[in-house]
C-alpha cells in the first residue's frame, strides 16, 4: 500500500512538473492546443462526410458511429498525451545513452518510462471526445447504468493498456538494433484499425485484427457496452486476457532487453 501511495504521488508530481514546464512556454502550448483541436474537428468532419453518405457501417447507425468516434477520440487523446512522448523519449534515451538515469532511480523502470512525460495539448481533444460521447448517447436516447459506465471505463483502461503493451514491446526493440527512427510510428499508423467497428473486418482481416492482434476491438468493445449491444462476452474476456498476457510479455521482454543496453561510448 505504501508503495502504491509512493507511485501515485510520483505520478502526480510528474504531472505538476510538466504543467509547470508547459506554462514556461505558454505560446507553444496554446499553438499545440489549437493544432490538436483542429485535427479533431477535421477528423470528425471527414468521418461525418463518409457516415452521412453510407448511413450504416457494418450494422452501426450514424449516431452509433459517432459514439464509436467519441470513444476513439478519448482513447486517442490519452495515447497521444502519454504514450507517444514517453515512447519517443524511451527509444531516444536508449540510443543516446540517457537511459542511465532511468535505470539508476529506485523506482520501477517501466512505470517511470510510461509516466515520465506527457503532453497537455490533447486536453481539448479529450474534452471534445467526452462531449461528443454524451451528445451521441442523448441522440441515441440511451441512459447507461453506473455499472455500464464502470464496465465501459474498465474496458477503456484495458484498451489503453493493450495499446501501451504492444507499443512498449515495439519500442523495446531499440535495445536490439542500433537505430530505428520510425519505430514509434508503427502504432500511430495502425490507429485507423480501431477507428471502425470490429464487424467491418471479415475473413483474414478479422482473424488478424480481432484474434491475433485484437486492435480492432479496442474502441468497439467499450462502445458496445455503452450501446447495450455486447456482441460477445467471450470476446471481451478474450480481449482482457490477451491484454494481461501482452503486458506480462512486455515486462519480460523489457527485463531481457536491458541486458543489451550498452550506453554510449565516452
Amino acid at each position, binding site marked *: 500500500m505504501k508503495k502504491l501511495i509512493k507511485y501515485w504521488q510520483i505520478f502526480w*508530481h510528474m504531472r505538476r512538473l510538466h504543467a509547470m514546464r508547459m506554462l514556461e512556454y505558454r505560446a507553444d502550448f496554446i499553438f499545440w492546443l489549437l493544432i490538436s483541436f483542429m485535427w479533431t474537428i477535421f477528423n470528425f468532419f471527414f468521418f461525418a462526410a463518409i457516415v452521412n453518405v453510407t448511413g450504416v457501417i457494418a450494422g452501426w447507425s450514424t449516431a452509433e458511429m459517432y459514439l464509436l468516434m467519441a470513444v476513439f477520440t478519448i482513447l486517442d487523446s490519452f495515447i497521444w498525451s502519454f504514450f507517444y512522448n514517453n515512447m519517443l523519449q524511451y527509444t531516444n534515451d536508449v540510443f543516446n545513452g540517457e537511459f*542511465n538515469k532511468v535505470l*539508476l532511480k529506485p523506482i520501477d523502470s517501466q512505470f517511470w518510462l510510461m509516466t515520465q512525460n506527457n503532453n497537455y495539448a490533447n486536453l481539448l481533444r479529450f474534452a471534445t471526445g467526452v462531449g461528443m460521447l454524451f451528445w451521441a448517447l442523448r441522440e441515441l436516447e440511451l441512459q447507461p447504468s453506473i455499472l455500464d459506465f464502470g464496465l465501459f471505463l474498465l474496458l477503456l483502461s484495458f484498451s489503453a493498456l493493450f495499446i501501451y503493451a504492444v507499443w512498449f514491446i515495439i519500442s523495446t526493440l531499440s535495445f536490439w538494433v542500433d537505430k530505428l527512427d520510425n519505430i514509434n510510428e508503427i502504432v500511430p499508423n495502425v490507429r485507423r484499425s480501431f477507428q471502425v467497428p470490429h464487424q467491418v473486418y471479415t475473413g483474414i482481416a478479422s482473424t488478424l485484427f480481432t484474434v491475433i492482434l485484437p486492435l480492432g476491438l479496442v474502441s468497439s468493445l467499450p462502445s458496445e457496452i455503452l450501446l447495450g449491444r455486447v456482441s460477445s462476452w467471450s470476446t471481451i474476456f478474450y480481449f482482457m486476457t490477451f491484454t494481461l498476457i501482452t503486458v506480462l510479455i512486455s515486462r519480460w521482454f523489457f527485463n531481457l532487453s536491458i541486458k543489451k543496453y550498452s550506453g554510449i561510448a*565516452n
Partner: protein
Amino acid sequence: MSNSQAVISVKNLKKYFKVYKKEPGLWGSVKSLWDRTYEEVKAVDDISFEIEQGEIVGFIGQNGAGKTTTLKTLSGLLYPTAGEISVLGFNPWDRKSKFQKQFALVMGQKNQLWWDLPAMETFLLNKAIYEIPDAQFKKTFDTLVQLLAVSDILKVQVRKLSLGQRMKCELIAALLHNPKVLFLDEPTIGLDVVMQKILRDFIKAYNQEFNATIILTSHYMGDVKELCQRAIIIDHGHKIFDGQLDDIIERYARTKKLSLVLSKKVTLKELSKYGEVKDYSFPAVTLLVPRHQATKAAGKILNELPVQDVNIEEPPIEAIIREVFETKAAK
C-alpha cells in the same frame, strides 16, 4: 583486506561489447547491408579489486581504458559479461530499490536536472523518488546548499545556469539521499580552475562528513592527487596498478630530477656526464638521473661542478603516468 570490510568487491569483472566495423566509402556502406564485420571489444577484461568504507579511490586511465564501463557496471547500468560484483552487499544488476537508495553516480557529461525548470524542482522530485523524510531532506539540503554556495541560483531555470553552477546542482541532486557510495565520472570536466577547486573541496568535505566511499575518474591529475590516497590504473581494460598514489612513483618512475643552480658556465658535454640534460638555461640546469643513482650523482656534482644549489625532486605524477601509457602503447 578482508571481504567483510569491503564495501565494493569486484572479482574477475569482464565487459565485452560487439562493435561493427565498416569499410570506408559508399561501397563499404552498401556492402554492410548484407555483410557486416563485427569485432569484440574488451572494454573491461578481468579486473578485480576491493574498496573499504570511507576510501576515495582514483581511477586513472586513458580514453577508452574501461573506467566509465567499470563504474556503469558497478552502478547496475551494464550487465557484466563475466565476474562477480558486490556493492554494499548487493549485486548491482539486481537494481534493488534498497541498493539504489544508497549510492549515486554523477557523470560530468550527463545531467539529470530538468532543463526548463529551476533545479529546486528536480530536488523535490528526487525527494519523492528516494522517499527522503522531510527533516532529513531539509538538513541535507541546507548542508549541501551551504557547502556549494548555491542559494542564489535555486530558483533560476537550469538552462540559464553556467556549467559550473549546473554541476553544483547536479551534485546536490545526486547527494540529497546521502549516498554511502559515490561514483564520480569526470565531475570537473570543462570547469575552470576555481570551480575545480570548489568541487574538490566539496567532495573531500562530503567524504569526511558522511564517511562515504568514493570512486573518482578524472583526466585532471589534480583531482586525483588532491582527493585520493589510493589509485587504480586501468589500461585497455586491464588493471595495471592498484595501490597508494605515492607508490606509483616508486614503481614506475625510472628517474629523479636534479635541479642545479650554477655559479659559472659549464659546457653541455660536461653536464651530460652526470645524466640526461633536460633543460639548460644558465644558471639553471635540469638533469634527469636514474633513481638509484640520484644521491650519488648529486654528491659528485657538488664536488666537481661550480654549483650554488642542488635540489633532488621526484618527477610529477602526471609525467610518470603519461610515460607508463606511452611505454605500453609503444609495446
